[in-house]
Structures are given as structure tokens and as C-alpha cells.
């Protein structure tokens, strides 16, 4: 199964980016083989609708679940519409987050964890 983890860097030892919409990168990893690719998030500097375009990037990557820190309402709605599972409140390294997911330690989020524009300084 492919999952996407928001990441501040481009490798498995990078930290999980606390923001979804304006995360620096998505590490998309195959949980069976641990093969991964790093997709940079074009929405990081979007004027608006960052969460939605970030979610669209995840949809296009083929991932079926997202691991991140916080997720806003528009992103959560988009992920839900695409039937992508959301696991928020995740922190630490990307690798640890993946391991936690694989061992079933993460709880699925049922909706957004923060309001719009959270973490953009507004």
C-alpha cells in the first residue's frame, strides 16, 4: 500500500511536516517494499486553496493514506472525497511515522484537526 507522509526534507530520516497544505514535500512510500519517492508540494506558495491542491497531489500520487501533523477543512474534505485515509497529529521522523502506521499505532482522523489558514501566520 502506498502512503504519503508530509515531510520537511526529502528522505526517510526527515521530520514529518506539521502542516499538510503547505508542507514542503510528500514522501510517498510503498509500505511493503519501503521504496519511496519525494514529491515537492507546489501548493507551498499558493495564494489560496493550498490544502486542496496538496490533496490533489496526494490523489495523483496513488497514495491511499496521509500521515501529517495538522490538516485543515478543505484538505480533509478533498481527501475524504478521494477516499484517502487521514492520520493527523503525527510527528517525529518520516521513517518512525511509517513504522507506527505499519504497526497499527496511529489513529485515523475523522475530520480536520485545525481551521483554515492554520499555521500560515494569519
Amino acid at each position, binding site marked *: 500500500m502506498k502512503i504519503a507522509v508530509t515531510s520537511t526534507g526529502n528522505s526517510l530520516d526527515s521530520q514529518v511536516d506539521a502542516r499538510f497544505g503547505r508542507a514542503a514535500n510528500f514522501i510517498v512510500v510503498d509500505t511493503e517494499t519501503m521504496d519511496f519517492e519525494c514529491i515537492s508540494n507546489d501548493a507551498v506558495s499558493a495564494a*489560496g*486553496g*493550498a490544502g486542496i*491542491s496538496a490533496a*490533489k497531489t496526494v490523489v495523483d500520487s496513488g497514495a491511499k493514506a496521509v500521515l501529517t501533523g495538522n490538516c485543515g477543512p*478543505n484538505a480533509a474534505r*478533498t481527501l475524504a472525497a478521494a477516499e484517502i485515509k487521514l492520520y493527523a497529529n503525527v510527528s517525529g521522523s518520516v521513517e518512525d511515522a511509517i513504522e507506527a502506521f505499519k504497526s497499527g499505532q496511529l489513529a485515523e482522523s475523522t475530520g480536520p484537526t485545525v481551521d483554515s489558514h492554520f499555521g500560515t501566520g494569519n
Partner: protein
Amino acid sequence: MRKSFRVAIASGKGGTGKTTIATNLAKAAAEKGATVQYVDCDVEEPNGHIFLKPQIESRKDVTVSVPDVDKDKCSGCGKCGEVCQYGAIVHLGGKNVLTFDNLCHSCGGCWLLCPEQAIRQKQVKIGQVESGKAGKVWFGQGILSVGSVRSVSLIRHLKQTVDSEGLVILDVPPGTSCPVVESLKGADFVMLVTEPTPFGLCDLKYAVELVRKMGLRFGVVINRDGCGDDRVERYCEDKGIEISMRVKDDRQIAQVYSAGGMIYDCLEEYRMQFDDMVEMLGALL
């Protein structure tokens, strides 16, 4: 007859006294016999009505078009999502197309490009435009609906209700972002109201940069003159910016203001300053 003369009262910083200047100027010009239209473009928080106390004669809802996707017609090509710059319509594969009314800027790209004509235009209300009379002054204001972010569209609608005659006073929202740009469009002269404080100066610089970029003629009004420091003055001198008016830092003005009164009605000693300003604007014609 010459078309209207449009004066925009703007500022970088909020709370510098735009509405105080705009409403008193409207009153002063009307007293001189001019045809005056006061237009409150601060649609997120219009407050000119508190001072001008207009009789509202007309209220109209303002709506904008947003996409409504007919899934039966959709072929899942995704062109709608590709063209949208705001994430207001997103294609998630197949016929799974999601829309976000609040993010749409009504550019029309999605419904124009849809090869199946599967996107209808749905109307959503963004606010109201009200107009009426405040004594001799024609009064207009926009009121943005709670939760709507479409202030630019509402300002555009509001400005379309203004006649092309007489003196038009545009009370502009604070800041230097899109609603300000929309409000300033078509202005013949801009008055940038500021206060002699570091905050006032900081935001004045942004405002000056904006009006210069838009190629608009402008002058500065220093409100609460006498408080703070002289940096605004030095800045204006340095940049060759005309100081069109100074309003003294006077407790009486604050008292009149906080009771919803107007300087022009209550404080005779300041009345002449607004009369002078009307004359100054007349000379710009």
C-alpha cells in the same frame, strides 16, 4: 457635462481616520452645493452610516456565479481542475469532481473549458448593496455576508451603482490588498490618511508604493497631528509628497466621534479645514 470626480480616501494602517475624513468631506461638499455621492467600499466593516445616518431606500442582494457540476454529463477529463488557480474545483479522478464555493473567483474558466458543458453557473449570495440619502449626500455601501470572502466582487458591484456625475467620495478599506486596489480603480485623486506614529508611517509607505504603481495622484492627510513624532512629515518632505491636510490631535474630536457625531456639525473650528479641502479638490478638476 464633465463626468464625476472621484476622490478615494485610503490608508495603509487601519483606524487612522479614513471614515472621519470621508464623511466630513462629503458633508462639507454637499453644504457647498455640490452633488455628492459617498460610497463605503469597506464592505467587511462599513461604518460611514454611523456618522452620515442615511435613510436606506434600496437594498439589493449581490450574487456571483460558481460552478455546479452535472455528474451525468461529466466525462472526467479534468480540464476544469487544471484551469482553476484557486483550488475551487478539483478533479479527483473519474467523475469525482469537488467544488469549493468560497474559493471560487468566478473567472469562468471551468465552465468555458468544459467540453461536455457539464458545468452550470450556480448563483451564491455574497452580500448586499444598499443606497439612500443622508441629507443632501447620496449614500451607498456594500455589506459582505458573514463567511463570504468575495469583497472584491462586492466592491465592483457597489461601484457600478454610482452615477457618473458630481463628486464621488470612495471610503476605501484599510491595507494594500485586492479590495483596496478594486476600490481605488478609477479614482482621480487619493487621500492617504495616516497618523504621525511609526505604525502610521510604516503602512503609509506601502500605500504610497501602491498608489504610485497604479499611477494615481495623491496627497497625505495627517490625522491626530501633534501626537507621535515627525517621521511622517520628514518622509513626505523627502519623497516630495504633498500634505493636503492636518487634523489636530484633539480630545474634542474623539468625543464627537465616539458619540457618532460629525466634526463638521459639532466643531466649528475645524469646519473650515473641510471647506478648504473641498476647494482644493475643486481646483484639481
